[in-house]
């Protein structure tokens, strides 16, 4: 059995380009990604160092998966992992005959559409859960006066602040991605 390693690295829904670059870098150093365990444990297997392009797609919901994967296979993409709607593909750089051929999204219109899907299907639901469930729970807890409630409140408020920070980060980053691809107002 080949040697494996597990690395922890947290990428938000807005960091998929960084994630692609990191996985490509790992492969160049002889580590091929096998799978991913949430929230960010990546399992790699020892392999020959090679320049392999990694791409993450976030397709529309309700796709006919067989057709979708067949099309990617025809294009030479190997599908090897998935996580919450994200599909992971890779292809040796040597098999791509141009810069364009190593992209799965080849025009700005489709890149902007993907950013919009991520915002609509991932960021907005998370913010809604936060505002409608977590925040009211937190506020009702803050009415208790006991010391155990107090300390729990302290831990929760740090967690909530962290979440707010994450939402702001993702929102700003997705907006920046959209603008980068010419989808700004």
């Amino acid at each position: 059995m080949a040697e494996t390693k597990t690395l922890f690295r947290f990428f938000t829904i807005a960091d998929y380009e960084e994630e692609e670059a990191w996985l490509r870098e790992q492969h160049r150093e002889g580590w091929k990604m096998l799978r991913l365990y949430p929230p960010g444990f990546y399992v790699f297997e020892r392999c020959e160092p090679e320049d392999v392009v990694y791409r993450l797609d976030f397709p529309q919901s309700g796709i006919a998966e067989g057709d979708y994967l067949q099309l990617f296979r025809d294009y030479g993409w190997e599908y090897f992992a998935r996580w919450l709607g994200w599909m992971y593909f890779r292809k040796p750089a040597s098999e791509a005959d141009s810069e364009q051929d190593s992209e799965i999204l080849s025009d700005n219109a489709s890149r902007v559409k993907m950013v919009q899907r991520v915002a609509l299907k991932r960021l907005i639901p998370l913010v809604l859960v936060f505002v409608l469930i977590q925040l009211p729970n937190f506020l009702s807890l803050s009415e208790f006066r006991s010391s155990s409630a107090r300390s729990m409140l302290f831990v929760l408020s740090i967690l909530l602040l962290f979440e707010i920070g994450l939402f702001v980060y993702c929102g700003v980053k997705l907006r920046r991605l959209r603008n980068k691809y010419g989808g700004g107002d």
Partner: protein
Amino acid sequence: MDVRIKRVYVPMTESAFYILLCLREPQHGYGISQKIRELTRGEVIIGAGTMYGTLSRMEKDGLIVFVREEDKRKLYQMTDLGAEVLGLELRRIDRLYANSRGETFNG
């Protein structure tokens, strides 16, 4: 023609234009991309994600239709509505071309 269809597809992206153009005959996604490469001598390359997204949207909007399956690949073809949209787009491109040459467009 639906106002929405016209708003979304006239003008259309270069990818959408080439995909629709190729679907005057039945073809599957990868076949379309190969055909476009050939037509443009590799200047226009359409990625798998862009291809899949455009095909599903056009099918949903009725511009193209699934005709049959070959080796697990779906073949699509342009519908009458698709031909109408393509016609509008070709007319627009003719106008651009005429005007870019300093000519007046005569429709």
